């Protein structure tokens, strides 16, 4: 069973704000799901290469060149920005 501190830590890493009730709710649910994975511990996997890439392809590279956007494309991107100033996306200060 995950501890309350562990859940708060995970939520922080995941950048998801949680209330105390939510911490408690997810503590139970996440613990139940994590228990479900215990069965994998018994599977012998010594020397087995982890499989993430299932295509067998590698190094699909492209030319490192800049692709310019049209004014219409720029406008479409800017239209989605929550806060804009002079065509730049505005963010809260980092420090």
């Amino acid at each position: 069973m995950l501890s309350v501190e562990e859940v708060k830590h995970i939520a922080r890493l995941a950048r998801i704000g949680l209330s105390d009730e939510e911490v408690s709710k997810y503590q139970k649910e996440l613990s139940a799901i994590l228990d479900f994975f215990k069965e994998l511990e018994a599977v012998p996997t010594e020397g087995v290469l982890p499989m993430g890439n299932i295509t067998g392809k590698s190094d699909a590279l492209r030319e490192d060149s800049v692709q310019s956007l049209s004014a219409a494309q720029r406008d479409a991107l800017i239209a989605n920005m929550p806060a804009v100033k002079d065509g730049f996306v505005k963010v809260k200060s980092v420090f």
Partner: protein
Amino acid sequence: MLCENMIKELHEKLLAREITAVALAEEYFARIEAKNGDLNAYLTITKEQALKDAAFVDEKIANGEPIGMLAGIPGAIKDNICVAGVRATAASKILDNFIAPYDATVIDRLKKENAIFLGKTNLDEFAMGASTENSAYGPVKNPLDPARVPGGSSGGSAAAVAGDMAVWALGTDTGGSIRQPASFCGLVGLKPTYGRVSRFGAIAMASSLDQIGPFAKTVEDVAIVLSAISGFDIHDATTGESDAKDYTGFLDGNIKGLRIGVPEEYFSADLDTRVRAVAEKAIEQFRALGAEIIPISLPRSKYALAVYYLVMPCEVSSNLARYDGIRFGLSVNDEKNSTPETSALLETYLDTRRYGFGSEVKRRVMLGTYALSAGYYDAYYKKAQQVRRLIREDFEQAFESVDLIFSPTAPEAAFKFGEKSDDPLKMYLSDIYTVTANLVGVPAISFPMGGIEDDGKMLPIGGQLMGKWYDEENVLRAADAFERATLKN
């Protein structure tokens, strides 16, 4: 009634000028207007553009210009696939105001075919779920029984086609999200081989598992849509197989000698006896068509669900990191939770995601974050990826002696609303037969194979056929042969 027809028939009617593309589109919009308020299959209707595109097709026909099979044929697009200038929500509040700035590659290809888009369909939020009960915009009702779910996550697309509100639809499938709704709604739904169809412009859920695929009432219609959307794409480095194929060319109904494997693990004692009965009847039908039925074993398949529910949330936690209230989407900073340690920027992240994401999304993001974090990565994610390789080896071995693998698509028919939504694990078990195809990357189709009775209602049950990598031909051929044989009865 116009919408009873299949794509080829509608195409011929258009060419013969028995109907116009505009009239066809208007017929479908009338149906959507009549039914969507109740069924909630569509989140956004794109009537103005659809009618413009339909008029363009009618003009081409009037000028005697050649048109493709999909020209003027109305379809629906799952709302996690980008159509330029149209809202794309992924059924999440966090994208409530997001307007897609570009077309997904599949959309671009369908536009080149002059297909008509009726609108964007409802889904479980960020494609996470098996019922559409996780949508931030309310669930979708199954047109065959409105007390029941249409399946998920592509429930809106399935309900649109099954409810005669679209001739075809696109969905996405990460662990069964096309196949299970197809099964629940009596449709054909295909998850292509991983890499067959470009994922560019699909809102990413789990990048090593996601695939876009078609829904329709018949295998031929699914084959037509697949032909239009598949093929190598420079924008998706995981796509392979360059040559464009016409999949309808393989629907010759001849499956004599085709070897169909039946895994003992998928027909365990736990399987609902009604579902088993329908599946066994389907096996006999394949046998009657000349296929060779071969018992096989996929020993590590029992770990597939655990592997999937570990690998997928890890990839989800990475893919959903972009929803941070900065460049697009919902942005919240209610300044209620500031502490000296919380910068305003951090609070934007915490609040945006707190209010923007639903519970299932938060669950999976946190699960993945935990499993990838320092100290846990080896025990969870790495271990799961190792078992994933072992599961794939079982398939490689099985495919040395069979061409296709058969099972039910889901262990049940469409369940009632609320039946599984109180327990996440209960919902995950719906995926027991479908997740494996995503883990190993093979193509898989769900086709109607019969019905079962549940609580006085007759409900459809889908059969699943998995094929070898890039062998959509045999998958479609076998499903089509079955469909022809059963339609005769």
